[in-house]
C-alpha cells in the first residue's frame, strides 16, 4: 500500500515548482503543501506558518534558514510529525500524515525519522550507550527485543564508534561536554537507520570548532550513506554547505536565494 501511495505521489508532484526545476529526479521523500500553523499567545492568534510548500528528495541536505523566532523549529516539528498543522498536507515517503492515527505516526517516527535537537535532549538517567539504544528499545516489544537485542546493541556500539565516543559509552549526559552530547544525540537519531534526519539548530549550542566537527559528521553521513536531512538553522555558515537553502520569511518559504543573501539573513539574526 505504501508503494502504491509512493508511486501516486511521484506522479502528483506539482509541475513547474521551484524545487522541481532545480533538483534532479531523485525520489521524493517529503512533500508538504499549504502548511498553516498558528498559536494563541495572550489571547491573540499568532500565525507562524502561512501556507508553506516544501519538497525534499532522497539524499538531499536542505537547510531552512531564518531569523530567530520566525517559526523554523515549528516547521521542523510539523514536518517531522511531532506537531499537527492547522491546515495543509504532509506526505512522507508516500504516506499521508492525516491517514494515520497517533500510534501509527509514533511508530513511523520511530522507524523512519531521526531527530537532532539544539539542546541535545538526552535522557539524563541513561548512559550514552543506553541513550543511543533507546529508539531500538522503543521499536521492539519484549518478545522481539530478545531476538533483536544483539543486533541493536551492536549497531549502537558501531554508531558510538562512528561519532568517536566509544570510551564515553558508559558516561551519563552530565559527564559529557556539549559537543559529545550532540554526537550522542546524532548517534541516537541514526540508531533505527532512519530515511530522514531532522536537525534543529544542531550546532546552535556549540563553540566554533565543535560545531565544525558536528557539521563534518552530518555531511559525512550524507556522503557515505546518502542520508537525507532537513537542517533548521540560523547559522549561515552551516547552511552554506547544504545542497539547497530555503528561507522562512513571514511564515512562507522563499527559495533560491544566493549565499550572499544567506549571509545577510544570518547577520540580521
Amino acid at each position, binding site marked *: 500500500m505504501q508503494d502504491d501511495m509512493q508511486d501516486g505521489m511521484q506522479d502528483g508532484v506539482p509541475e513547474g515548482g521551484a524545487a522541481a526545476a532545480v533538483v534532479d529526479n531523485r525520489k521524493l521523500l517529503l512533500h508538504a503543501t499549504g502548511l498553516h500553523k498558528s498559536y494563541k499567545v495572550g489571547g491573540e492568534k499568532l500565525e507562524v506558518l502561512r501556507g508553506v510548500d516544501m519538497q525534499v528528495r532522497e539524499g538531499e541536505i536542505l537547510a531552512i534558514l531564518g531569523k530567530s523566532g520566525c517559526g523554523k523549529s515549528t516547521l521542523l*516539528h510539523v514536518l*517531522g510529525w*511531532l*506537531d499537527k498543522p492547522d491546515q495543509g498536507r504532509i506526505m512522507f515517503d508516500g504516506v499521508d500524515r492525516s491517514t494515520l492515527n*497517533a*500510534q501509527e505516526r*509514533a*511508530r*513511523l*517516527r*520511530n*522507524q523512519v525519522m531521526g*531527530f537532532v*535537537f539544539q539542546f541535545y*535532549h*538526552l*535522557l*539524563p*538517567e*541513561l548512559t550514552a550507550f543506553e541513550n543511543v539504544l*533507546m*529508539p531500538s*528499545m*522503543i*521499536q*521492539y*516489544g*519484549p518478545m522481539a*527485543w530478545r531476538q533483536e537485542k544483539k543486533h541493536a546493541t551492536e549497531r549502537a556500539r558501531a554508531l558510538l564508534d562512528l561519532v568517536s565516543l566509544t570510551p564515553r559509552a558508559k558516561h551519563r549526559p552530565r559527564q559529557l561536554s556539549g559537543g559529545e552530547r550532540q554526537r550522542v544525540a546524532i548517534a*541516537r537519531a541514526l540508531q*533505527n537507520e532512519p530515511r530522514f534526519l531532522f536537525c534543529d539548530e544542531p550546532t546552535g549550542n556549540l563553540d566554533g570548532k565543535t560545531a565544525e566537527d558536528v557539521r563534518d559528521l552530518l555531511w559525512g553521513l550524507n556522503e557515505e550513506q546518502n542520508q537525507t536531512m532537513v537542517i533548521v538553522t540560523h547559522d549561515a555558515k552551516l547552511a552554506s554547505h547544504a545542497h539547497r537553502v530555503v528561507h522562512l520569511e513571514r511564515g512562507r518559504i522563499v527559495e533560491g536565494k544566493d549565499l550572499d543573501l544567506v549571509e545577510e539573513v544570518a547577520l540580521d539574526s
Partner: protein
Amino acid sequence: MYRLFLALRYLRSRLVNLISIGGVMAGVAVLIVVVSIMDGFQARVKRTVRGSLSHIILTPTVGADKLPAFTVLEQGLKRDIGAVEAAAPQVHLPVFHEYRSRKRTVVAMDGMALHQMLAIGIDWQRERVVTELESYLLAVFDPKDPFFHPTAVEFEKTTCLVSRTFAENFGLGTRGADGEVVHPYGAMRDDVTGEPLRGDAMRAAATSLIGQEVRIVYGVQKSEGGERRFSTNSKNLIISGVYDAHDAVEDNTRMYLGIGAVREMGDVAHEYLQANVRLSDYEQADSIKKTMIGVFGDKFVVETWEDQKANFLRAVNQEKVLLVIVLSFIVLLGGFIILATLTLTVVEKTRDIGIVAALGAGRSGILSIFLWNGLLIGILGSLSGLALGAWFTANVDGVKDFLKSAFGIDIFPPNIYHFRSIPTVWDWPSVLMIMGGSVIVAFVAGLLPALRASRLDPIAALRYE
C-alpha cells in the same frame, strides 16, 4: 521493553520513591503483623477456652429428683448419639478466696480481702478424658490422683488444684510455715524484681506450693421448713497441684476440687450441674447438638462451647475486622504518597516524556512507563513489607520484652489479653491478600499521574525547562 527499563531507572534514580516504598512497606507490615496476631489470638482463645470447656455442655433444667444418674446419662449419650467419645460431670460453686491485702477498701477484718472465684468440682478420671486439664498440670503430689495429698488425708481436709496465674497474682507461698515472709512477691515471682518466674524455676516454685493452704469462704443455701436460708462457711484447702491453662483471665478465677467435696460444701442435691461431652469430631458439633436437643432437650440445655463463649469469640473477631479496616488506611496513605511522588516525577520528567515521544513512543507507551513505576513501588513495598512483617511476627515476643525492659511499656498485659506470650498464626492467604491489595492500591495511585504524562503534548514537553 523501554517501559519497564525507564520505570526501573526512574525508580532507582529518585530518592523520593524510597518514601513511597517505605509507606507501602509500613502498611503491609503492620497489616500482616496485626492479622497474624489476631488470627493467633483467635486460634489460641479457641484452643484455651475449649481446653477447659469440652465440646458440648449439657446443663440440667430439672430438679435433682428428676435428673438421670450420670452413669445413665453417659450410657445414653454413647448409645444414642454418634461421635460421643466421653462425658464428665461437674458441679460449680461460687467461692471467695480470702487473702491478705494492703488496700483497705474491700476488707473484712485484719486487712483480709475477698476474691471471687469458681470452685469446679470434677471427677478426675472422667475429666481427664473430656478436657485438656491433665495436660495443663505443672506440679502435682500424685500424678495418678491429682487430688491426693497425705496431709489432707491425715487431717481430713479438702484438696484443690490452683492455677499458676492465681498463685502469681495472689502471692501464694509468701510466708513460710512459721508465718515469716520468705518470698516478698510470692513463690511464683522473682524475689528481687517481682517478675513472674519462667521455665524450670517456675515449675520448682509450683512444686513448692504443694501442701500449702488457701482459705476460701462460700455461701450455702438451705431450705428449712419451707424457708430458704443462707449461711456462710469457710475452709482451708490444701493445694495438691498447680496447673496452667494459659488463660490469664479465666485461670485467675477458677480452682478445681473433687466433685464430692464441692457437692458437700455447697450442699448440692444434684449429682452434677453440668455434663461435659467430648466428640470424636468437633466439626459435627452443630448437627450432634441438634440430635442431643431432640433426645435430652426436655431435661438439659445443650450448647457447644462456642455457644457459651459466643460473645467473647464475636468480640475477638470484631476486633480483628475493626483493626484491619483502620490499619488499611496506612496502605491508602501509602497510595497517596505514591500519587504525590509520581505526580512530582511526571512534572520533573516532562522534558524526558517529550524526548521519548519524539523518539517514537506512543501515548500507551508513556502511560505504561509511569504505571510500571507505581506498580514497582507497590511490588517492592509489598515484598519489603512481607519481610518486615514476617520478622516482626516471628520475633513479636522479643519485641514485647524489649519494649517492656527498655521503656517499661507493656504492650500485651496478660490480665487483659489472657495470654503470657503473644500468639501468632501465619496465614498465607491473608498475607497474599494484603500484598495483592497493596499492589492494586499502588497501581491505582499511579494511574492518575500516568494518564497525565501520556496526555502531555510532546512539543510543549520538549520546550519544558
